[in-house]
């Protein structure tokens, strides 16, 4: 705030001193008058400001949503209460929006007039620039003088917590998950009856149900269409495995390897949990993280919260991670590995997992695209050939600048 007004203060000081100097030099009374007038106006101005500041009792209530997605614009609502007996004029409210991009974090809103013993509600928008956990605040109120030249600050040490989750893109196609067992925590029923599952019960016919599944006896008895319902074996298990390596975090800003991995992991988590799959996370982000297998929205929330805060602080390679955590990967499950192409050789470590009936789905980021743009196509082919010949895997590739949503469609 000082930076906004310092030029004006210097200018005013120069004018006051110049008036005095010229007055002394020339003896012309008007310059003395000008000097006295400016000096007394400034003094009166300060006196006014000081009275308002010392008598004011201001209270601030700050509300923002506690979660948002990257690039989402959220609305912050602030209630300013003037509990003092003097009305307030030219009040400026300052909020430190830490989730905004650098240079836009200080939000200042001017309030022209707040009558005594009353409140004013204001709201302003804030763009969540990058994933993370943020403490929004502190807020401060600036009391300005009538000439709008000087101010006094009243700080409020209030903070609001905000989680900015990575942006989740829609996945249209993903390899079929073929491995999984019935977990202990419940039975899911199919909303469309049929398939090769066990009989579960009957229910009323809904549009879209196949005619062959109508239970004619029950329909006749109840005089309405009844269909047979089956329980579905949909309890696939998947393990998402990745490292956020500090030494291989190529790129700049939002176009970093770290951001791509997190974004893909978030989208996959949302997709798999949305499909009813049980998902566990094994990752290394400076510390080893193991989120046990689970299902449901709460689990997704936990994963997204972890992904919001994950940073490329790890120095552990994929091999080391696999060595350390392979015992946690359940048998008869799917292992989804997100890695850089520089680590494709480490995927050889996944070969022994096949003996435990674990199917591997590699998602590979091409590091060269984060460094330079030459020879991408050639390198892509090389990796594809090598992965297929050695591991019999058909990996999914992600390139910098390419929309990851489209990469899944190509699969």
């Amino acid at each position, binding site marked *: 705030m000082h930076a906004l007004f310092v030029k004006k203060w210097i200018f005013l000081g120069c004018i006051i001193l110049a008036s005095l100097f010229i*007055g002394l030099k020339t003896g012309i009374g008007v310059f003395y008058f000008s000097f006295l007038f400016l000096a*007394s106006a400034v003094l009166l*101005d300060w006196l006014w400001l000081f009275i308002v500041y010392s008598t004011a009792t201001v209270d601030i209530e700050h509300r923002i949503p506690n979660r948002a997605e990257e690039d989402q614009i959220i609305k912050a609502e602030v209630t300013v209460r003037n509990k003092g007996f003097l009305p307030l004029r030219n009040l400026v409210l300052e909020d430190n929006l830490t989730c905004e991009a650098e240079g836009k974090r200080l939000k200042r809103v001017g309030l022209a007039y707040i009558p005594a013993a009353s409140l004013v509600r204001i709201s302003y928008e804030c763009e969540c620039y990058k994933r993370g956990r943020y403490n929004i605040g502190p807020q401060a109120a600036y009391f300005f003088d009538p*000439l709008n030249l000087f101010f006094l600050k009243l700080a409020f040490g209030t903070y609001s917590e905000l989680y900015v989750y990575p942006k989740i893109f829609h996945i249209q196609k993903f390899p079929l998950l073929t491995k999984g067992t019935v977990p202990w925590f419940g039975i899911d029923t199919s909303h469309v009856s049929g398939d090769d599952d066990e009989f579960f019960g009957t229910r009323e016919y809904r549009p879209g149900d196949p005619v062959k599944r109508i239970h004619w006896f029950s329909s006749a008895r109840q005089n309405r269409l009844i269909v047979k319902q089956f329980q579905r074996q949909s309890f696939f298990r998947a393990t998402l495995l990745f490292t956020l390596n500090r030494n291989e975090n190529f790129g700049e800003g939002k176009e970093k390897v770290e951001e791509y991995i997190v974004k893909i992991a978030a989208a996959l988590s949302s997709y798999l949990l949305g499909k009813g799959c049980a998902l566990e996370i094994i990752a290394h982000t400076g510390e080893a993280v193991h989120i046990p297998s689970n299902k449901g929205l709460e689990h997704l929330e936990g994963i997204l919260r972890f992904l919001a805060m994950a940073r490329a602080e790890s120095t552990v390679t994929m091999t080391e991670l696999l060595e350390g955590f392979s015992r946690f990967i359940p048998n008869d499950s799917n292992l989804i590995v997100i890695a850089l192409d520089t680590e494709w050789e480490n995927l050889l470590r996944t070969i022994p997992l096949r003996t435990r009936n674990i199917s591997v789905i590699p998602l590979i980021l091409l590091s060269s695209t984060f460094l*330079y743009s030459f*020879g991408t196509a050639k390198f892509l082919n090389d990796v594809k050939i090598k992965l297929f010949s050695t591991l019999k895997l058909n990996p999914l590739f992600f390139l910098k600048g390419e929309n990851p949503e489209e990469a899944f469609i190509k699969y």
Partner: protein
Amino acid sequence: MQQRYFGIEILVTYCMFLFAGILLANELTGSLLYFLIAMAAGFLFSWHAKARSFPYFSLVVGFGVAAVIIWSLVELYNSDFGYQETLITEMRGVFLLSAIFSFGSFKEKFLSFLQILSLMLVMCSPIFIKAYDLSQYLAIFCYISCWVLFLKLKFCQKFQMPVEREMLKDYHPFIVVIAGLLVTVFFFLGFSGKQEIGGGLFYAKDHPPLLSDLEKKYSQLQDKVLRMVPDSLIKTGYNQDISSAPLFLNNLVKDPGLIKEVARAEVGLVSLLRNAGLGIEENQDKEMMELIKEFVDTKAELNFQKIKKDIQRKLREGLLFNIKQRYSAQGAMNKMENSKSVEEVKGEARKLNKIIGDSNFGPEQETQLKKMAEELKLWRIFRLHREEVYLSAKEELRYPEAVSESQAKQEEAQVPKAVPPENITPPPQPPQPETPPVLPPRKPIFNLTIILLLFFFLLSVLLVILMILYIMTEQRKSRILSLYEANSAAFIISLYLNMKDILAILGARCKNTVTPLKFAGVVEDKYHLKESPFSRFSLKFEEAKYSQHPFEKKDSQAVLQEYNNIIKDIFNSQGVLSVFYAYCTALVRRKPIFI
């Protein structure tokens, strides 16, 4: 909203100049109206041009400002360095600058300059205004109000507050301003701001009126004397020596007049009016005495100023490039004008004579100037003598000239130097104390030859530097070309890096985080390059830098052709000034453009 802020701001700024103009209307007669019209046109232009961008606008404004500064310096150079004349010149310069800046007021910095310039103009006004009238008081108050509105406007703009409603509603700043004015008036009434400081350009204490005002006043008084004095003489009924009255009157009003004759005529006329007879009424008598006294005072002042002006003119003609001597002579004359004792006047006159003697004037001109300096001194001494006499007369509560004929004669005798120099021999000077030997006069430093020599020297130094830079640039070019056959990959990389430097000079800087192909896309978009030549070039560069592919001479040839074509296309899309700038900067940075 931003448009509204801008509209109000230029309106307020124009009002500031309008009020400054009201305060300085007397000093800038004739030109003020044109300045204000030009500014109005400038603001209108800015209002319509606010959404557009003019690539060379800053350059044009820069030239305008430079022209005004040069004009102002030339005017100052040809002036007498009188503070009033200097200030008027500078104020005209400030108005000219403001008119230029008003055309660029759609840029924030120019608008800020304008507001500061208006304040400078207003701060000059007290030097010229002796007695404020209602319109000037109102102008000052309105000017202050403009600043209050401006501060409010800036505050609203900064914190995105609706501007019109707030500006109308919030009267608190005006309360502070009025309270400040009241406090100031309260303190000022008991405050004596009279300081006895003076000298140099800022000498302003009891400053003399402008010559034109003095001439006007003199001619008015002359008419009055010619009309009223004969009537009064007739009314006195004094016939004894009535024939001397026209002679006195003639000597008194004659232009320019000799000091002795003027002094004698004044004393004679006063005596005639005061002597016995029917006489005029008591009040009329006083009025007549005052009229004659004022007329003689004005005549003395006018003659002093006229001679001063003549000396200034002659000095300017003779010492065009010798600012120091001109300034010293001006200072001596100013000090002579403001001296309070005869000794001081004599001292300054000696200085002036010395300066004239030291200057490179011809013998005729020097004699003429010295005569004028002598006259200047005599008129000033005459003034001083009269002031002393009137002061003592006031203390004795009587009119000095009317005491008696003998006293008048005595006083007349006390002004021996009032006799024209051609008619008298100079009185013997009192013995002067021994002074140290005077150093020979210094030759003027600033003359045309030295300036021209300096200019050519600087020009030749510049040419030598340019030559060296050109040779270094050519060397770099040959270094690049030496790779043409020897190492095609290195040649392509060097060409690309050189191209990046040239583009940086033109304003398309490549950040370290931007990949070559992305940069190529940006450049092609910016300079409308068809068929993506820069992308092809960048691909070749990437291939040369990051792959092991062998390159041949034909690759070098193709890339060199591509490079020169790209440069040619880019330069064709630029204006002449931009290309000139690019060539100059490339030369300074030793980057070859075409290879």
